[in-house]
C-alpha cells in the first residue's frame, strides 16, 4: 500500500487541455474523491494514475516511486470500471482469480485468495455463477473483489456506483467504505455525485476544465468554498455579488452583508458572498435577535414541500434566494408572504470576484 503524489500534471488532446498543471497528494490509506462535472478532467486524471495514458508533462509517484512512464500492467493498481468490465466468458470465481493466475500463482493460493476476496464482498457462495446471472450490485462487488484480490498499492474507482439505482447506491457506498477501511487501501474515487463525495471521502478534490479548483476535507470545502464554482458545485449556495468592505461586501443597492470567513481582500475589490440555504432563518417579523446578523427582506415566491424539509424561494430586489427549513412543526409560510431572512456572519463566506 502506498500514497500517490501527482505533481504539475498536464495532458492535452489536440487543442483541448484535459489536465492543466494539476498537483494533488493522495495520502496513504486515505479515501479521496475526485469531483467535477463531465469534461472536467477527473477521469483523465484517474487514467493517468492508472497508466492507461501518459502525461505530456508532470510527475506521478506511487509509494515514492516515479511511474509516469510505467505501463498499467506493471503499476500494481486495482481498478473498478463504471460498467464493471467483468469477463463474460468466465465464472465469477475465474474473474476474481484472473489477476493472480496471470501472475502464475499456485492453484491452491489462488483458490484461497479468491474465496477470501469473495467473502469480503459478501459473495462467498456465488463463485460458480456467470456475470450475466448477477444483479448490478453483485457485479459491482465482483468487480471490487477482482480489483483488490491482487493486493494492489492503490484502488482506483471510475464512477463505480453510477449505474446503480438510488437505494442500492446508498448501500454500496456504506459497503465500499467498510471494505476500504478493512483493508486500509489508498482509494481514489471519481464521481460527479456531490453527495457521494461528501459521505464517502476523507478528502475531496474539485476539478473544472482540467484544473484543480479546491482540495481538502469535505467539511472544509463545504464550509469555506474558495470560489463560486466550488460553492455551487458541492452543495447549494446563495451567491451575492458586490464590492468588498474588508469584512464583507456591499451589494449594488447599498445593503451590507457581513462575512465571518473566507478570503482577506482589499476594500473596493469585486467579491461575492456565499451562504448555504439551510443556514438562513426565515420569519414573518423582524423580531429582536442578534444585532450582528445579516438581514434581508423579501417575499416568498414559491415553496417546495419535501416531507422533512421545505425549500422556500424568496424574491428580493431581482434576486431569488433559496432557503431550506426543517419541518419541525406544522406552521408553514404561504406563497406571497412578506418575510425577513437572517443568518450569521460566520455562515457567510467571502469569495474573491472572478
Amino acid at each position, binding site marked *: 500500500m502506498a500514497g500517490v503524489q501527482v505533481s504539475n500534471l498536464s495532458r492535452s488532446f489536440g487543442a483541448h487541455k484535459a489536465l492543466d498543471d494539476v498537483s494533488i497528494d493522495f495520502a496513504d490509506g486515505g479515501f479521496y474523491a475526485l469531483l467535477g462535472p463531465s469534461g472536467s478532467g477527473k477521469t483523465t486524471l484517474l487514467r493517468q494514475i*492508472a497508466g*492507461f495514458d501518459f502525461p505530456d508533462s508532470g510527475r506521478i509517484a506511487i509509494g515514492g516511486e516515479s511511474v509516469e512512464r510505467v505501463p*498499467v500492467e*506493471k503499476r500494481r493498481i486495482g*481498478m473498478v470500471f463504471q460498467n464493471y468490465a467483468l*469477463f463474460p466468458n468466465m465464472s465469477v470465481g475465474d474473474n476474481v482469480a*484472473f*489477476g493472480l493466475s496471470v*501472475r502464475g500463482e499456485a492453484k491452491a493460493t489462488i483458490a484461497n485468495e479468491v474465496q477470501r476476496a469473495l467473502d469480503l464482498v459478501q459473495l462467498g457462495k456465488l463463485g460458480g455463477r456467470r456475470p450475466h446471472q448477477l444483479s448490478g450490485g453483485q457485479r459491482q462487488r465482483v468487480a471490487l473483489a*477482482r480489483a483488490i484480490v491482487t493486493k494492489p498499492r492503490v484502488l482506483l474507482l471510475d464512477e463505480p456506483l453510477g449505474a446503480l439505482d438510488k437505494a442500492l447506491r446508498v448501500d454500496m457506498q456504506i459497503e465500499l467504505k467498510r471494505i476500504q477501511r478493512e483493508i486500509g487501501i489508498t482509494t481514489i474515487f471519481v464521481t460527479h455525485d456531490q453527495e457521494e463525495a461528501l459521505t464517502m471521502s476523507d478528502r475531496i478534490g474539485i476539478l473544472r476544465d482540467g484544473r484543480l479548483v479546491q482540495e481538502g476535507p469535505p467539511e472544509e470545502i463545504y464550509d469555506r468554498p474558495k470560489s463560486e464554482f466550488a460553492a455551487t458545485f458541492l452543495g447549494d449556495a446563495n451567491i451575492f455579488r458586490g464590492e468588498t468592505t474588508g469584512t464583507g461586501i456591499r451589494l449594488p443597492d447599498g445593503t451590507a452583508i457581513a462575512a465571518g470567513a473566507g478570503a482577506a481582500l482589499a476594500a473596493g475589490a469585486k467579491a461575492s458572498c456565499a451562504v448555504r440555504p439551510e443556514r438562513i432563518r426565515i420569519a414573518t417579523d423582524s423580531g429582536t435577535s442578534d444585532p450582528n446578523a445579516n438581514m434581508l427582506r423579501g417575499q416568498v415566491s414559491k415553496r417546495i414541500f419535501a416531507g422533512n424539509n421545505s425549500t422556500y424561494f424568496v424574491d428580493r430586489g431581482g434576486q431569488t434566494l433559496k432557503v431550506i427549513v426543517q419541518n419541525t412543526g406544522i406552521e408553514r409560510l404561504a406563497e406571497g408572504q412578506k418575510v425577513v431572512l437572517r443568518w450569521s456572519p460566520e455562515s457567510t463566506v467571502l469569495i474573491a470576484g472572478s
Partner: protein
Amino acid sequence: MAGQVATGSRSGLRSALPLLLPAYLWLTVAIFLPLSAMVFFSFMTELPLSGKAWSFTLDNYATFFAQGLYWTLLLASLRLGLEVTLWCVVIGYPAAYVLAKVFRGRSREAIFLLVILPFWSNGLVRIFSWAMVLREGGILDTALNAVLPFKINIDLMYSYPAVIIGLVHSYVPYMVLTCYLTLQAIDDSLIEAGRSLGASRLQMLKRVIIPLSMPGLVAGAALIFVPVVGSFMEPRILGGRTGTFYGTVIEDQFVAVFNWPLGAALSFILLAVVLVILALASPVLKRAA
C-alpha cells in the same frame, strides 16, 4: 398478461407474413425445387432429358464407394478446405483485430473498403489475374528478379500452392468480416481491466479476446470451409493438372461427361460429409464459444 402476449404474437405473425413470404417463396423455387430434382436424378440410370429409357438405381452411390479415386479426391478436397480455412484465420484474424481495435473513424472506413473491394470484382477475373501473377515470367517472377541480385524462377502456376493462394484470396474477406463483428463487440474496458490486473497482451489475447471472438471465427470457418471443399473454378484454372479435386470431378460430370446422375450423387455425398463434419465439430466449437 399471458393472453395478451399470445394475441400480440399472433397478430405479429399475421403482419409478418407478407414480409416473410417473398423470401420463402424465392427460397422454395430457387433452392428447394432444383435440389429435389437433383436428389431425384441421383437415383436414376439415365438423365430423362436425354430421351433414353431410364429406371431407378443405387449404382451412382455405389460407384463412389467402389472406386477409391473418389475417396482420395474427397479427402484431398477436405484437406484443401482445412488448409484454406487455417490460412484465412492466420491472415484474416489479425487484420480484423486491427480494424476493430486500432483504427478509428475515417481510416477504419478506408481500410474496411479495401477488405470488401475484391467482392466488387468478378471472381473469374480475380482468378485470371492471379494466373498472370503466378506463372513463370509473370508479375511475381519479374518483380522478384528485378529486386534480387541472383536469378530465381518463380513458377507457381498449375501447382497446389497456386490453388491455395487463389482460394485464400477469394475467401479471406469472410473471415475478416465475421471476426471484425465479434471483435468490435468486445468492450475496450475489458481489455483495460485485464491490463490493470497485470495481464500481458498475449495473455489477454489467449484468455479473453480469442474466447470472446470465437463465434466469429466459427462462423467465418463454416462460411469458408463449406464452399472451398466443393470449389472447382480455382483448382481448375490455377491448379491445371494438379488441380483435380472432388469439386472439379463433380463439375466434369455435369459439363463434360454429361453423367448428371453420378454428378448429383457425388454432390449429395459431399453434402452429407460436410454436414457430418459440422455436426461433429459443433459441440466442440460451442464449448469454445
